[in-house]
C-alpha cells in the first residue's frame, strides 16, 4: 500500500529549483491519494451526521440499519470503549454525539457495510429522534450566555497589557472589522483505510498533518496503548490546517476493530465541508493612537473569534490573533483582548495564517485610516513604524532574529505597475470575466498595500521536536544510499524535495530514499505553522551531521589514524596530512551507518497574565501591493496584480517558494472577494464547490515576487518558513485596493457584490 520516493543521483542542491517528484503524477492522475487505497475484503463506512446545529438526542435506534443486508457494524456513542471525547488541545469533542449535538454535521453514528451504497442506505436507516433546540450562533451572546458545554464557552481570553496602558496619542482612529468563515478547500476530501492487526491493534493509512497527535487521540478513544495504533501517511491532496483535527480516524479504527476487517471511508466534498474545522470568523474593534508626526503610541484592540462548537486549536489561534494584532509595527503601549468562544456554529481551528490573517484585515485598514487622518502617505507611515531587529513586540519579546519589514514593503511597492486601464484590456480580464459585464468606462482601478507577520513553529513553551533516523548503506548497484525516516506529513509543502536537497548537501552524492512517514519513528510535529523546513529540515540536517561524524571515525579506523586530522569535504573524508581521500562507498563497504536524533528549536516561554513573554521562536514578514479593477455598478472585482516582498530567510528551493507564494496569494484573494461559508442559524448553506467559490485562473492575479533573503540565525541554512505569509496580507491588500477604487469603507471580508453595488 505504501510507496517510497527514490530520488535520482544529483549534485548538492540547496538553493536550486527542484521539481516535485509527485507533480507530474498528480497532474496525470497517477498519484495515489488516500482515497485510492484498497485492501482485500475491505468494508466501506459512512457517517451519520446531525442535521441540526443544536438538539437533544432523545433516542437512537440502529435496528433498521442492522437489518439492511450487507451491513457489518453500526456504532454510536455507547460503542466507544475508551475516552468518549477527543481534541487537539482540549478533549472536549465527542467521538459520537451522545445526549446532545452542538453543530450541524456532528457525527451521531457510523456504519460499515459491504459496499458504499449499502453503507449510505444503512446510515439513512438509523432512526434518531432529536429534540431540536435553539442554537446560539452569535459569539457575543455566547461570551456572556449560559454554558453550551460542561467546559464553558470561553475557550481562551488572552489579555495583553503592555507599556503605559492609559497612554494617548494626538491622533486617534477607530474601526470595527469583520472576517467571514473561510474553508481550506484542499484537494482530496478526508479519507483513510483502517486495517485490524494481529496484535489486537489497528493500522491506519490516513491523509493527515500530524500522525502522532492523531495516534494519541485515536488510542485514547479506542482504549488501547498508543503502540498498538500504527499510522502511515497516505497520499495527501492538500491540508492548509484542515487536517490537523481528527475527522474520520477514530470512526474508521472503531469499525475495523469491531468487524475484524479492513474498513475504508471517503468523505464526499459536501461532507468534507461539515467534517473539518474552518478559519475562525472574527469581529474586531480597534483604536490606534499616534503622534502628529506619525509614530504609533498605542493600539487598543478587542478580537472576538467564533470557535464554533468545540475547542480544536482555538486557544492557539486566539493567542496568535492577540500577539500579532498590532501588525509588524513598533507599538510601545497596547491593550489587547483576544477571545475565542464556543457557539453552535461549525468548529473552527487551524487554517493557513492561523489568527494572523483575521487581525491583518483590521490592523492594515487602521493603518490606512491613520494615514488619512495624518495626511501622510500610507507607505511612509508603515515604513516609519516598521519593526526592526532589536525592537520589542507588544508581548515584551525582543526580536533577536531578522526583521526586514521595511525591506519587504519597499520590495512590494518597487514592482512596476501593470498597464493602466484601457480598451485593450480583454473582456475576459475585466471584472465579471466570462460574463462580459463591463465596459472600460464602467471600471475604476485601485491600489492597496498591506503588511503582515506571524510566528514560525509552535509557541508558548511547547516542546517542539522532530525525530529523524538515517541509514547509510551501499545499494544494489554499489553506490551509497541514504534512507531518511521521519514522520513528517508531506501535504504539498515540498518537504519531499527538501529532504533530498539537505541529504545531498550534507552527505554528497547519495541516492536519497524518503521512507514512508509513519508512527514507527518519533513525532515530527504537525505540518503547520510554516515549521517543517525549520524543524524536519533541521532534523534531517542534524542526523546527517551526526552520520558524518561516524563516517569520519570509521575512516580514521580504516586508515589507522585518529579522527583529529580528518575533515569532511565534498562528500569525502580527507586526511589533511597526506591529502588522502576516502569516499562514502569505501567507508560504507564495512557496513551500514545508522544514526538517529531528536531535533528541537530554542525553548520559548508561556505568556503571563499580562500576555508578556518570549512566546515565539521567530517571525516571518511580508508585504503585498494589490492592483484591482472594480465595477462599482455591479460590485464585481478583478484582482489584476499582487506584488509582494517576502522575508524567507533563505530560499532553499525557489521554485517551490514561488508555488507557495502564488498559491497563498490566490487563497488570500479568495478570502477578500469570494470565499465564505455562509451560515444561517448554524446551518451551512453552501457546502459544495457549486456555491463555496474559490478563485479560478480568471480570478487569480499576476504575481510579482521579490524574495528578501536575510539568513535567520538558528534556522537550518538560514531558512524561514514560507507557507503562511502569502495568505496573510494579500487579502487585506486587495480590500485596501477596493476601498481605493470605490471610496467605500468596506469593513468586512469577503467583500460581496452587494457591499459595493448597493452602496456606491
Amino acid at each position, binding site marked *: 500500500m505504501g510507496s517510497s520516493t527514490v530520488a535520482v543521483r544529483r549534485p548538492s542542491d540547496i538553493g536550486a529549483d527542484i521539481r516535485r517528484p509527485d507533480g507530474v503524477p498528480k497532474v496525470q492522475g497517477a498519484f495515489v491519494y488516500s482515497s485510492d487505497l484498497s485492501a482485500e475484503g475491505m468494508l466501506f463506512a459512512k457517517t451519520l451526521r446531525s442535521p441540526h446545529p443544536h438538539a437533544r438526542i432523545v433516542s437512537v435506534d440502529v435496528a433498521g440499519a442492522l437489518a439492511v443486508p450487507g451491513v457489518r457494524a453500526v456504532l454510536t456513542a455507547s460503542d466507544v470503549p475508551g475516552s468518549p471525547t477527543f481534541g487537539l488541545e482540549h478533549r472536549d469533542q465527542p467521538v459520537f454525539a451522545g445526549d446532545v449535538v452542538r453543530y450541524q454535521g456532528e457525527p451521531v453514528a457510523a456504519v460499515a457495510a459491504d459496499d458504499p451504497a449499502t453503507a449510505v442506505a444503512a446510515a439513512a436507516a438509523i432512526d434518531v429522534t432529536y429534540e431540536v433546540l435553539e442554537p446560539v450562533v452569535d459569539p457575543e451572546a455566547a461570551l456572556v450566555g449560559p454554558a453550551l458545554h460542561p467546559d464553558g464557552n470561553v475557550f481562551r481570553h488572552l489579555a495583553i497589557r503592555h507599556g503605559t496602558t492609559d497612554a494617548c496619542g494626538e491622533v486617534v482612529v477607530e474601526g470595527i472589522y469583520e472576517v467571514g468563515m473561510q474553508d481550506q478547500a484542499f484537494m482530496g476530501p478526508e479519507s483513510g483505510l483502517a486495517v485490524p492487526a494481529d496484535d489486537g491493534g489497528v493500522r491506519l493509512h490516513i491523509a493527515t498533518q500530524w500522525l502522532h497527535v492523531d495516534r494519541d487521540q485515536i488510542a485514547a478513544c479506542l482504549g488501547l496503548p498508543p503502540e498498538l495504533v500504527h499510522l502511515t501517511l497516505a497520499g495527501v491532496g492538500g491540508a492548509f490546517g484542515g487536517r490537523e483535527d481528527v475527522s474520520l480516524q477514530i470512526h474508521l479504527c472503531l469499525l475495523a476493530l469491531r468487524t475484524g476487517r479492513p474498513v475504508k471511508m471517503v468523505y464526499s466534498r459536501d461532507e468534507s465541508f461539515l467534517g473539518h474545522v474552518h478559519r475562525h470568523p472574527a469581529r474586531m474593534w480597534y483604536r490606534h493612537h499616534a503622534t502628529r508626526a506619525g509614530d504609533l503610541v498605542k493600539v487598543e484592540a478587542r478580537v472576538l473569534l467564533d470557535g464554533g462548537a468545540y475547542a480544536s486549536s482555538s486557544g492557539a489561534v486566539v493567542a496568535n490573533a492577540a500577539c500579532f494584532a498590532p501588525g509588524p509595527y513598533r507599538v510601545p503601549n497596547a491593550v489587547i483582548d483576544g477571545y475565542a468562544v464556543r457557539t453552535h456554529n461549525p468548529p473552527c481551528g487551524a487554517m493557513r495564517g492561523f489568527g494572523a490573517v483575521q487581525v491583518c484585515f483590521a490592523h492594515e485598514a487602521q493603518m490606512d485610516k491613520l494615514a488619512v487622518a495624518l495626511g501622510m502617505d500610507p507607505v511612509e507611515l508603515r515604513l516609519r513604524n516598521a519593526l526592526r531587529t532589536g525592537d520589542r513586540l507588544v508581548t515584551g519579546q525582543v526580536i533577536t532574529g531578522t526583521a526586514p519589514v521595511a525591506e519587504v514593503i519597499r520590495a512590494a511597492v518597487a514592482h512596476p505597475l501593470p498597464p493602466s486601464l484601457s480598451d485593450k484590456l480583454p473582456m475576459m480580464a475585466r471584472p465579471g470575466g*466570462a460574463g462580459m459585464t463591463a465596459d472600460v468606462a464602467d471600471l475604476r482601478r485601485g491600489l492597496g498595500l498591506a503588511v503582515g507577520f506571524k510566528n514560525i513553529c509552535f509557541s508558548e513553551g511547547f516542546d517542539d521536536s522532530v525525530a529523524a533516523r538515517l541509514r547509510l548503506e551501499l545499494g544494489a548497484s554499489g553506490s551509497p544510499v541514504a534512507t531518511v525516516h521521519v514522520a513528517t506529513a508531506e501535504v504539498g509543502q515540498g518537504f519531499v524535495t527538501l529532504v533530498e536537497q539537505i541529504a545531498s548537501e550534507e552527505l554528497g552524492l547519495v541516492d536519497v530514499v524518503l521512507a514512508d512517514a509513519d508512527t514507527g519513528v518519533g513525532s515530527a510535529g504537525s505540518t503547520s505553522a510554516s515549521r517543517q523546513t525549520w524543524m524536519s529540515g533541521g532534523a534531517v540536517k542534524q542526523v546527517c551531521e551526526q552520520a558524518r561524524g561516524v563516517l569520519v571515525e570509521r575512516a580514521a579506523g580504516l586508515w589507522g589514524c585518529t579522527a583529529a586530522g580528518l575533515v569532511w569535504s565534498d562528500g569525502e573524508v580527507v586526511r589533511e596530512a597526506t591529502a588522502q581521500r576516502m569516499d562514502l562507498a569505501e567507508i560504507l563497504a564495512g557496513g551500514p551507518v545508522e544514526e538517529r536524533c531528536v531535533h528541537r528549536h530554542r525553548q520559548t516561554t508561556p505568556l503571563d497574565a499580562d500576555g508578556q513573554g518570549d512566546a515565539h521562536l521567530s517571525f516571518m514578514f511580508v508585504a503585498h501591493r494589490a492592483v484591482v479593477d472594480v465595477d462599482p455598478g455591479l460590485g464585481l472585482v478583478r484582482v489584476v496584480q499582487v506584488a509582494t516582498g517576502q522575508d524567507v530567510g533563505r530560499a532553499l528551493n525557489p521554485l517551490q517558494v514561488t508555488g507557495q507564494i502564488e498559491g497563498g496569494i490566490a487563497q488570500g484573494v479568495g478570502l477578500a472577494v469570494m470565499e465564505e461559508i455562509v451560515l444561517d442559524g448554524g446551518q451551512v448553506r453552501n457546502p459544495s464547490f457549486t456555491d463555496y467559490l474559490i478563485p479560478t485562473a480568471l480570478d487569480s492575479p499576476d504575481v510579482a515576487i521579490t524574495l528578501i533573503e536575510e539568513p535567520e540565525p538558528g534556522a537550518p541554512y538560514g531558512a524561514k518558513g514560507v507557507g503562511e505569509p502569502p495568505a496573510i496580507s494579500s487579502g487585506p491588500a486587495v480590500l485596501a485596493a477596493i476601498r481605493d477604487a470605490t471610496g467605500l469603507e468596506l469593513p468586512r471580508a469577503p467583500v460581496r457584490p452587494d457591499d459595493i453595488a448597493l452602496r456606491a
Partner: protein
Amino acid sequence: MSVAWPTRLDEAVDAAAATPGATLLAGGTDLAVEVNAGRRRPVAVVALRRVRELGEVQITPAEVVLGAGMTFSAIAAELAAAVPALAAAARTVGSPQIRNAGTVGGNIATASPAGDTLPVLAALDASVELSSTAGTRTVPLRELITGVKCTAIRPGEVLVRVRVPPARGAQQFLKVGTRNAMVIALASAALVVDEERRTVACGLGSVGPVPVRPVEAEAFIAGEIDWGRLTVPEAAVARFAELVAGAARPITDHRATAEYRRHAVAVLAGRALRRSIDVISA
C-alpha cells in the same frame, strides 16, 4: 438500472416510450450531479448522445434550427455570427469540460432559473420541438418552462430541436456571478434588437422562477429608439433599466439578495442597450 443507447431519433423516441419514467441523458452535467447527491435514482436511462440528428444545426436566412443535443462548445463556435447572444451565453456556462458535455436541450429540460441560455432563448421567442410515439409538437419556450425546474414536457417526449430566428440586429448577453468564470448566474440579461421589425426583446435570468420578459420595458425602449439612426436618448436608457428592474421577480438566497439581483439585472440591461444602440445626450 437499464440503459438504452439509441443512434437514431426514432429509436430514441421508441426507447423513451418503452420504459415509462425513463430518464433522458444528454450531457449529464445536471443529471449526474443529482444522482451523485442521491436526489435522483433513475431506473431506466435513455442516453441521447449517439443520436446524430440531435447534434445537427441548420442555419437559413429565415431560421436557425439547433439540434437539442448541440453542446455549449458547439453553440459558442458555430452560432457566433448567426445568433451571437446565444453563443455568448454558451461561453459563460461552467468550465470547458462542462461546455463540451452540456447541451442546449438539457439546459431547457432542466429549466433552472439560472440556466444560462434560457434568457436568450426567451428573448428570441424560441420554440421547442418535442417528439414522441404519438407524434411531434412544437411549443413556445415561454409555455414549455412552467416553473423552477418544471416543464410541460410529457413523459415519453424527447426534446428534439430548438428554433430561433437569426440575428436581425445587435444581440447581447451579460451575466453576473461572484466569480469571473465557472459560476452560477446571480443575474443575467439578454438583449435582442430586431432592426427589421423595429423591436427590442429582453430576457432576464436568475430573477424569477422562469425567464422574465420585461415587456413594458421592451415596448418603451422600442418607442424611444430612432430606428433610422439607431440612436436612443440618454434619459430613455435609465427609464428602460428602471422598467427592467420593475419586471424582475428575484428572491434572496445564499448566493445573493433579491435587492442586489434586481439592481444588477437593471444595470446589465442598460449596458446591453448601450452596446447595441448609440446613446445620445439630447
